[in-house]
Every structure is written in C-alpha cells, then in structure tokens.
C-alpha cells in the first residue's frame, strides 16, 4: 500500500480543469487515480490534515465557489480518507509543526503532514519549496505547456523522522510513471534517474 499526500494545488487545479470542461488534464488524472483506491493494482491511501483541508476550502471560497458544495466535497474527502485501505483519520494529523527547513510555513505544514501520516509520496506542483537542505534531487523529465514553454522537472527524496523516506514528485511525473507502470519508491527513483544539483 502507498500513502499519498496530494498538495492543495493538485486538488484546486483539478477543480479548475473540471470547471473549464477539460478532460484528462494532469490534475484530473491524479485525483482520479487517488480516489479510485488503487494505483496499478497497489492500494492507495490519501492522507491530508484538517489544516490542509481548511486551506483547500478557503481557496475555493475566495474563488467564490458555493460554500455548501465546497463543504460537502471536503466532507466526502474526509470519508475517502477514513474509509481508505489504511483508514486514515485527518483528526489525528493536525498539520504538525512546520518543518523549519522550509521557508514557506504552509509547505512546512504539508511536509509535516506527510511525515506524520508516514506517507511514501507527496504530489505537488510546487517542488522548489520542498527541495531544501538534506533533500536528494533527481532529474526526471522535460515538459511542455500548451503555449510551447518547456520546463525541466525533478523529484525530491527526503528522509522522514521515522527513518523511512518520502518521494516528492510533480503531478506530471506521477502520471508519466503510473502510465509506464514504474514503481514509485526512493529505491526505484535512485535506480532510474540521475542526481541533479539544487534547482
């Protein structure tokens, strides 16, 4: 089983894509995988803290989405976590103390959540803020946006306080790896990709 923490930006992007009547965007595919309960046959457990859910809720309310429906979706997300294969209870992860290695307090909270949930994977569009000191960085892929701009992607491996490790990946890489049936683990990342310098 893999425990996955989706960053808020993934969920918000998915909503924007739905709203723009897009289909099969990266975030839509990521969320589809996560709520399906398994990734390539491996059970998947979503883990988010209440603090993260509150942030998600706040972002949507600021963007003028209807409060009752936003609350319903957040409540459904809590149940998806509670009734997931590991029965994760967001009440038990309060967001933790933000990691002082990270400049952005919100990202520190996301990382603290991943540590507290013993997550194996954190999916975020905001890699730079997680590539701080003590992080291993691996060059993974080159992506292109619809306007023709290209961007180099990388993934980050960080040691968790419990001695295990956490992979932090971009949503596009997550989908690329899942489509190609690559195992997502620190060992597989080390075997598959070359170390790169800090971004």
């Amino acid at each position: 089983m893999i425990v996955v923490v989706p960053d808020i930006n993934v969920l918000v992007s998915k909503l924007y894509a739905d709203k723009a009547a897009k289909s099969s965007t990266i975030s839509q595919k990521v969320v589809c995988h996560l709520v399906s309960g398994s990734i390539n046959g491996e059970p998947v457990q979503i883990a988010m803290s209440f603090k993260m859910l509150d942030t998600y809720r706040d972002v949507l309310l600021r963007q003028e989405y209807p409060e009752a429906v936003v609350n319903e979706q957040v409540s459904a997300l809590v149940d998806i976590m509670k009734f997931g294969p590991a029965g994760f209870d967001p009440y038990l992860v309060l967001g933790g103390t933000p990691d002082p290695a990270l400049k952005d307090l919100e990202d520190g909270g996301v990382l603290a959540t991943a540590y507290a949930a013993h997550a194996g994977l954190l999916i975020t569009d905001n890699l730079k803020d997680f590539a701080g000191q003590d992080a291993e960085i691996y060059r993974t892929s080159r992506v292109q946006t619809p306007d023709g701009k290209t961007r180099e992607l990388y993934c980050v491996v960080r040691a968790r306080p419990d001695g295990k490790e956490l992979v932090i990946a971009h949503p596009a890489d997550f989908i690329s790896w899942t489509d190609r049936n690559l195992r997502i683990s620190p060992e597989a990342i080390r075997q598959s990709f070359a170390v790169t310098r800090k971004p």
Partner: protein
Amino acid sequence: MAKAKSRSTSLPEDLDLRVRMIALRENRTPANVLENAVRVFTLIPQDLRNLLIETSADQMKGARKIEELSRRIMFSLARERFEQAAAQLAVSGGKIDHDMLDADEMVVVETYGPAAT
C-alpha cells in the same frame, strides 16, 4: 401507521450481547436494533444475503471480512459524493486561475528515466 406484528425468536448469547451493546452505545432499545436489522436484511438481494450469512458464520474471520466489505462500500459512497460535489462545483459560478489551468495541460516531452515495462 402500518399495523405492527409481533415475532419472537431466541438469540444465542453472543448475538444477544452484540444487540445489547449496539443498543447501549447508540442509545436505542434492543427491539429497535432488531427491527432495524430485519428491515435492512429483508431489503438486501438474496445473493448478498447468502454471502453475508456465510461470511458471518466464520467466527474467526467473519467479522473482519464484513468490516472490510463495509469499508469498501463506505469508500465507494464517499467517492460518489466527492464526484457529485465536483460536478456541482464545475457548473457553479466560481472563478478559474488560468495560469494554473495552462500548467495543468503540460505534457511530458522527454523522460530521463527507464522505458515502459
């Protein structure tokens, strides 16, 4: 109000204990628990009823299997609620951040890792 019929049966001690525990925990009467159980049971299709009866007969693994089955049902219902709410939000008057939308349509043009397995 529908006319009520009285039925009687004898419960094994362990089953009676479970009924009383649920009644106590949920602040209901044992009769109410039994009435609810019969109501749900009689609405379940026969195939599933048979499967549940067979599973519950296994003292060791039965409870765990039914718990797992319940979890899957609850997960499926939560997923359905999540998707329904997403569909409602998609047709609501909320705003979109177009930069995020563009970034969400990126495609991987080159991967530095291994080929597909």
